[in-house]
């Protein structure tokens, strides 16, 4: 084909997206057919549309020379042509076959793009498809449909996709420009109000001028005054004119820029159905594998959501669904014996409220046994038995979101694609969302996800302290209080306040951030209560200004590692206001109390009180990165470059924790972990395995050799590593 290679590349890229869309379209249709469509006309329509989708794929793939995809789609098309003509009938195995064929088309496409050989048996698939066709007698007329003229096909495509694709980078750029325009608009507003003041001043001057005119003057002066008067009237008129003209223009500009901003925001929104339409297929496959009968009901998937948020919702949703099917919904027999309907019900409901999206996923399964959760948590040393006594059921239930809790349980039960609900929690928290769980023994479990509509806009509390403005994200704020100074008391040598009969430690924002603050505490204290998990702290600020809608912009290199600042926001003016990372503020306070205590201990006892961590990694970059992260939290760190060296070190020194890479020369991480875990002296040493996004098999292996936790390298910076370390040490 004499096509320009660059153009061909672009075409292939476009076709890949088209294949995904059309493939999804076929899948949805197949699943509907499987469920059974009552209305005959509706049924015919579905069949025709699948036929057409397959036909489209065939046409495009052949024109690009992707013959494997072309061949498969041709067979799907023929099958459905026969179904249309009622020469063969739809049956479950046929649906399975078609679903498989759709998957294989995707994988053939990927192989084509990667220039790799096919990763499935092509002939076997074609064979099966042929047999499906021959299930009843072959319909020769099906080949007629292939003769569609390309122009007709093109016209059809054109009508279907009356839209264009825009890269998200472009969108970001446009949004940034729009914000900048808003900032300028606000500045113009300000100048306009100055102009308004000017016209008032002119009016005031006019009064005085009138008085001056009434004074007796000689004729020379009189003439001068009159010339002055003429000029003055001119100035006054001009100013008035300018003022009025600007008023209408500014109102119009406001209206335009607001609706433009709104439109730009809407452009980023896509229906949540884009993601959810893949779920029925997923639930179907998984329930087949697990031999359970599950029905998924989706409600409210027309709600629109920012594409970026949507993408990050995918893994958590899949994870929760899997959790529900695997752990929640009972087997058919069990359900029958309990008097429940045989088919388990999964309800996925989407709702939009106050610019946030709520997704609830509820099953009518067995529910979660809180006692069992508590047992596991204690056995894994996540909490102590004494802590357990004071924990509420809800707090215990929340433990399943902690890293390291569910890893073993989940991996032994199912294909082990993830490592636990902590991933769900991390992903949702990264979106500035929240995930909560409710369960009723025997009746079912409900997961509730709450995420913002768009990533870029949220609400923050504007406060001042140490003569500087700060914003604290509203999600982390439990409540806001004004207290008088005599309501502060001391407990365990620390200032605290009472909230719902519980003491909460009190800090000043300036102290946490190491800012110099001249003003002493006044009698009325403005207090913001922030939370992280069930840690609450009270923070005193100079003044609470109020809640604002904010757009958080990230800090750029080299400031990307400043922990307590999540980013900056522009409120009206051009000035950047730091947005504080509330979780990190709490971490700082926790850490300072520990270091205070440690400092006190160090004076009396030996100085080696810090947990000593052994980091094993053959890459110098990863090694130094881990070392930096850990040392920033005052852990003592020793490094080793391979398993052997680590093993030798372990014989000589005592460590509180080991973090190891998998692939290393001489002795790899699995062998090392296995040796540690089977050694009498060392088997209590907690081990964290670190990999770059490894395979499922790798993860499984890590658990088998006895690792206590599993961290993906890309999650280092997000604090996951530190959180896990904190738990295990």
């Amino acid at each position, binding site marked *: 084909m004499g096509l320009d290679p660059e153009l061909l590349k672009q075409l292939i890229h476009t076709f890949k997206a088209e294949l995904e869309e059309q493939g999804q379209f076929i899948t949805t249709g197949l699943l509907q057919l499987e469920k059974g469509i009552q209305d005959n006309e509706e049924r015919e329509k579905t069949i025709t549309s699948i036929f057409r989708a397959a036909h489209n794929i065939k046409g495009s793939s052949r024109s690009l020379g992707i013959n494997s995809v072309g061949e498969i789609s041709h067979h799907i098309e023929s099958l459905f042509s026969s179904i249309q003509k009622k020469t063969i009938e739809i049956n479950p195995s046929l649906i399975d076959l078609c679903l498989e064929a759709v998957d294989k088309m995707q994988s053939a496409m990927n192989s084509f793009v990667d220039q790799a050989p096919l990763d499935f048996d092509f002939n076997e698939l074609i064979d099966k498809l042929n047999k499906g066709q021959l299930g009843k007698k072959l319909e020769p007329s099906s080949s007629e449909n292939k003769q569609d003229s390309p122009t007709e096909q093109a016209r059809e495509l054109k009508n279907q996709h009356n839209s264009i694709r825009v890269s998200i980078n472009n969108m970001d750029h446009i949004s*940034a*420009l729009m*914000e*900048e325009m808003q*900032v300028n608009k606000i500045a113009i507003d300000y100048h306009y109000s100055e102009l308004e003041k000017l016209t008032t001043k002119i009016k005031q001057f006019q009064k005085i001028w009138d008085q001056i005119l009434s004074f007796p003057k000689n004729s020379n002066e009189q003439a001068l005054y009159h010339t002055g008067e003429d000029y003055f009237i001119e100035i006054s008129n001009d100013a008035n004119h300018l003022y009025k003209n600007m008023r209408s223009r500014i109102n119009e500009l406001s209206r335009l820029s607001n609706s433009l901003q709104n439109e730009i925001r809407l452009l980023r929104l896509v229906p949540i159905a884009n993601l959810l339409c893949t779920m029925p297929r997923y639930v179907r496959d998984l329930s087949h594998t697990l031999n359970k009968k599950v029905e998924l009901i989706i409600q409210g998937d027309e709600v629109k959501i920012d594409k970026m948020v949507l993408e990050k919702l995918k893994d958590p949703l899949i994870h929760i669904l899997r959790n529900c099917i695997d752990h929640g919904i009972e087997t058919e027999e069990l359900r029958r014996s309990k008097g429940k309907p045989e088919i388990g019900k999964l309800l996925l409901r989407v709702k939009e409220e106050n610019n946030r999206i709520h997704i609830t996923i509820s099953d009518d399964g067995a529910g979660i046994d809180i006692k069992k959760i508590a047992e596991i948590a204690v056995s894994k040393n996540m909490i102590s038995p004494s802590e357990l006594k004071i924990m509420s059921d809800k707090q215990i239930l929340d433990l399943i979101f902690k890293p390291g809790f569910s890893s073993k349980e989940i991996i032994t039960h199912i294909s082990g694609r993830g490592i636990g609900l902590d991933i769900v929690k991390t992903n949702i928290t990264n979106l500035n969302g929240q995930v909560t769980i409710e369960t009723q023994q025997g009746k079912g479990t409900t997961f509730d996800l709450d995420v913002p509509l768009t990533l870029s806009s949220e609400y923050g509390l504007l406060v001042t302290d140490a003569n*500087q403005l700060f914003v604290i994200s509203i999600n982390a704020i439990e409540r806001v209080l004004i207290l008088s100074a005599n309501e502060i008391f001391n407990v365990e040598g620390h200032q605290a306040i009472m909230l719902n009969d519980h003491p909460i430690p009190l800090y000043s924002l300036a102290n946490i*951030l*190491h*800012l110099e603050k001249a003003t002493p505490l006044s009698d009325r204290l403005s207090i913001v209560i922030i939370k992280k998990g069930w840690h609450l702290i009270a923070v005193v600020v100079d003044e609470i200004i109020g809640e604002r809608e904010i757009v958080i*912009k*990230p*800090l*750029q*290199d*080299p*400031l990307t*590692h*400043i*922990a*307590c*600042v999540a*980013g*900056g926001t*522009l409120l009206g003016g*051009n*000035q*950047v*206001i*730091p947005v*504080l990372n509330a979780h990190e503020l709490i971490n700082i306070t926790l850490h300072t109390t520990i270091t205070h205590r440690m400092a006190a201990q160090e004076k009396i006892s030996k100085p080696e009180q810090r947990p000593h961590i052994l980091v094993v990694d053959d890459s110098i970059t990863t090694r130094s990165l881990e070392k*930096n992260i850990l040392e*920033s939290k005052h852990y003592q760190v020793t490094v080793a470059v391979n398993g052997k060296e680590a093993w030798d070190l372990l014989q000589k020194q005592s460590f509180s924790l080991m973090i190891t890479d998998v692939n290393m020369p001489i002795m790899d991480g699995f062998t090392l972990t296995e040796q540690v875990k089977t050694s009498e002296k060392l088997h209590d040493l907690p081990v964290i395995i670190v990999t770059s996004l490894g395979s499922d098999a790798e993860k499984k292996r890590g658990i088998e050799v006895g690792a206590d936790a599993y961290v993906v390298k890309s999650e280092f910076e997000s604090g996951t590593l530190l959180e896990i370390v904190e738990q295990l040490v």
Partner: protein
Amino acid sequence: MKTPTNKYAFDFMPQNPNEQHVLDERRKQLAKGQIKKIEMKNLVEYVRFQLGEHEYYGIPYPLTKEVISKTTITSIPGAPDFIAGVINRRGIILTILDLKKFLQLPPSDKELNAYIITVDCNNIAVGLIVDKIIGSDAYDPTLLDAPLSPTGAIKPDYIEGIHHGKTAILNINTILSELVLQIGRK
């Protein structure tokens, strides 16, 4: 140059063959000058600025993005003290470096801090506070003097070389990577 008011352009035209000859010669020379300039294209043009009262520095133009007059800088808690803070630049939060503090120069009696030069190197963009912009100049990289010995206050790595004995050309690449290292380490 002042032109006497009673003369017209025509009066400056060559009036005799002699003058015509001079003009031709001049024309040729000017044409040569053009060629000469093209031959010296390995010169690097730079913006020359002042830190404190009498220290001069330069940054090659290819690394600079713009020079802006100083606006309100927001300080960032937790950042090292040589980071003056951040500003909003076309919707992007730009880190501002207090160049004097970073180079450990003594604070001057009269702080001017009048301008910010934004530089961009290896995808890191930073604004540098400078006291005064002097102008433009050009240097030949092969003819720069070596930085002063380590007795000077500034780390020699930060200086590419000295131009004409008094302007220190900054090595922006090293400075930025050092910045990332130092702050990343915190």
